[in-house]
């Protein structure tokens, strides 16, 4: 009974942590994108606009979430949660400290890669359920994109697993060596690019392409449901950055103590900023270019990287 209660409490704490990361992510993106476009970004709510996202959230919670009358109502209402739960559960396996992760199992690295993939189903059904041509187009694109970028992302993490010898994220972090940075640089690049695509951001934001599909699969969502989709996206960015920093850079280059933690947080913020930087600097890819880029460029690079990792680990 105690462990059950403990699990529920831990679940709430995780949910609040994820909400905070999303709030930080949104605020940070609006500030960085603002400065890139020669403007201030939010500056009125709280010092340097920090409370802006809090205010947005309160607005979204209070706002009426409309359900289109022709929509498939139960599916329409369920989809935000079906999309949120998988991407939130990814946080469970991220090795925050040396040797510790909230949910430490054997194949936690693969868990981190596989579970968010289920979000694709949620997006597809969300688009379809809102009975809106743009929504369904966005949903179809989201599904195609997520499926095709699963592969390079998994392959790049596999080369890590080969070097570390274990598939658990905590193990990978523990076995981290400094020369991995040199050997696994292409893997990290592939991982970074495909995780941008996984989160539907940057040059790959086909599903919610503003200028074509207005808002993709969540076009008919409003209020808290729309906020959840936003939380999925921004918590996804932070999760990918956390995992990238933890495994590829050994969580602060393996340095124990507060300096390591500081480095770990610095790397995470750096990767998040990189994602924002890439989104606001490049135009959007066309769906066919998106697919060909995944299959013809990222996957071969990831395979070659796996080969190299195999050879190196054999030495």
């Amino acid at each position, binding site marked *: 009974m105690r462990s059950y209660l403990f699990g529920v409490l831990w679940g709430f704490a995780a949910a609040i942590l994820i909400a905070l990361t999303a709030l930080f992510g949104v605020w940070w993106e609006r500030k960085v994108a603002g400065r*890139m476009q020669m*403007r201030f970004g939010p*500056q009125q709510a709280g010092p340097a606009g920090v409370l802006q996202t809090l205010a947005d959230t309160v607005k979204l919670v209070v706002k009426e979430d409309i359900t289109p009358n022709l929509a498939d109502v139960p599916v329409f209402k369920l989809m935000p949660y079906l999309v949120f739960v998988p991407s939130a559960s990814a946080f469970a396996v991220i090795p925050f400290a040396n040797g510790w992760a909230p949910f430490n199992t054997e194949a936690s690295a693969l868990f981190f890669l596989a579970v968010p993939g289920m979000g694709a189903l949620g997006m597809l059904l969300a688009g379809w359920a809102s009975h809106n041509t743009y929504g369904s187009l966005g949903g179809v694109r989201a599904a195609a994109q997520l499926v095709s970028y699963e592969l390079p992302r998994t392959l790049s993490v596999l080369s890590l697993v080969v070097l570390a010898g274990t598939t658990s994220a905590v193990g990978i972090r523990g076995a981290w060596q400094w020369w991995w940075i040199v050997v696994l640089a292409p893997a990290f690049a592939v991982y970074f690019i495909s995780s941008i695509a996984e989160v539907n951001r940057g040059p790959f934001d086909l599903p919610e392409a503003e200028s074509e599909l207005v808002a993709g699969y969540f076009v008919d969502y409003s209020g808290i449901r729309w906020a959840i989709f936003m939380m999925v996206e921004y918590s996804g960015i932070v999760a990918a950055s956390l995992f990238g920093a933890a495994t590829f850079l050994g969580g602060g280059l393996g340095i124990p103590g507060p300096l390591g933690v500081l480095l770990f947080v610095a790397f995470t913020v750096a990767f998040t900023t990189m994602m924002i*930087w*890439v989104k*606001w600097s490049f135009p959007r890819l066309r769906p066919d270019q998106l697919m060909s880029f995944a299959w013809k460029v990222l996957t071969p690079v990831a395979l070659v990287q796996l080969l190299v990792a195999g050879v190196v680990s054999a030495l």
Partner: protein
Amino acid sequence: MSTADTDGTRRLDPDLDPDGSCGTAPSATAAAHPTVVHATNEYSSGVRGAFERCASLFVGLGITAGRMRARPKTLRYPFERLTLSPRWRGALRLTGLLGTDEVSTIQADCASYNARIGEMAAAGGLPPCTGNCPANVDARGQALYLAKGMSAEAYELVRLRNVLPGTMGRICHYPCESACKRNHYDEPIAIRPLHRVAYEGFQQVRAERVRPLPVTRGQRVAVIGSGPSGLAAAFDLMQQGYEVHCFEKEGKPGGALYSGVPAYRLPRDILHGEIDDLVAMGLRITSGVEVGVDMPIRHLIDEYDAVLIATGLQSSRMLPLPGADAEGVMGALEFLKVGNLTGDVGISGKRVLVVGGGNVAVDCARVALRVGASQVQMTSLESMDELPAHPWEIEEALDEGVVALCAWGPHSVMAEDGCVTGMRMQSVVSVFDAHGRFAPQFADEYMEVEADIVLFAIGQASDLHRLVEGSGLELTERGILPVDRTLMTTQADGVFACGEVVTGPGSAIGSIASGHEAAVSIHRYLQGIDLAEGRAFRPDLQCPRYGDVDLEGLQATRLRAKMPMAHPEERAKDFRSVELGITEAEGLREAQRCLQCESGVCVGCAFCARACPDYAIDVERVDDPDNRHVARYDLDLTKCCFCGLCAEQCPTGALRHTAQYELAFYHRDLMVFDKQEMQRPEEGSRATGADGCAGGGCD
């Protein structure tokens, strides 16, 4: 390895290798031959292309990162506000409104008048009618008073700069009306007839209004000649408190106005009535005394502190043609003097030929008709449309039966046994040479014109020989008195000159203007102030040219008061007045037509409403004389598109743009700015919020 596109692209090196010269600054060669620039650029092929593709991504990231360092360009609204250009076309506002604000009239004494006019012109507040008048008479002020029925004040205001308003109301060549802004809209204001209305209004209250001016200064000034210039200078000096004594050689004062201008144009009683007013105000005039003959000028110079020579032009210039000494050939001025004063020149039943095309020639012709000439002909070098005389004078003369032979030059006078039988005329090819100088070219085609009397009206000259004896003044060999035309001084100390003796043949108002300048010089001389230092002169303004307006279809109220004319045949027989003058009521309405230009006070003329493409302005004015005000001025902001056409058409410059553009209102009626709102202070009001930008409250 250059890229696929041709050499045309000298602008931007397509492949982004770092050393590429990314476009030189555009060369400013003016007439570079028109080449074609090709806009297409491709990546190079192969490995180099792949390298360029990746490089392009990083170049893009570099640019956006570069912008992050720079300070953001946006404002922290509402703490920091945009600074708007002074020409910003925001909501409209009126700087003044008839009924609440007062139009300023030009009340300045002669010493500071030119400075006041110069300062108004610089500030853009000088109405074109005042600007174009040689004496800068405040015609706007006159119309303002007349519109309120205060004709006496109007008369006195005009008299400040135009010493004989009633007289000038009949003989002035009114340059003010050609400059009137109303030419742009429909017809100009009839300013000259309004002088007459003011004169008639003043006559009723003449008794109490004419008071002797106090003599506050000890010096005494002598003025030789009581023509318009002399009287103007005398009046100015009397207002400054000097004692002025005027000497006139004719029986009655008035100079050229008395002897030159015919009675049908200027009735004698009006001229002498106004001069009597001057006398009543303290001017001493002794007629019948010719200085230089009855009294030496040396006596005046010793007796008086300053002497002003304002004799005008006395003798008409004769042409040394063969046969010009025959009997029956007369000078214009002599003819006019006898014709005007006595009326019988002994030409009844004879044929008269007037040589010359100026105003004096036309006067001679019309006077000849009236004193019994059987047939009157005019010849002039210039063609019909180049005649120097005023167009309306020529037209009236032609109506009365005068025959004009244009573009014929005098060759010789035909005479039998001493008396004139006619003239041989030679046809004229051109009058002025390329530079506009008077150099007539003649063709060899001749014509005879029979006439019994020949009048030469080709110019006048002054004969000052007798006047200047013993005064230390030398005349030039052509008999002209050398005078400094800006300060009106002569070589002799304390002796000044003004009027046509200085300027040569000109208009009456021109002489009056030179009289004012002379008065200023005399005043400074007597006060010991240096004449030239700090001396403000009249700004010379270009009168704007207006396009012609077709008047059919306009409401009658907008048109000008028509001056009734006497019937041509009847008026040719005697010296009755040609222009019969407009009535008091017509004068009042005409004065109300005046737009009070550049006054900054809206007079409700509604030309902004007519200029507005969307009819957003609605103006209504109440015109009863004692309470003249704009009753309603509504600007409907729902219709206004801020194009600014109305503010440009506003003749008074009262309608101005403000910097208020945040104009979202809560109530519909706040959108229509009424009279009060249009006069809101620059900062703001109930409709535009306290600081003019915060938008109206929802009270």
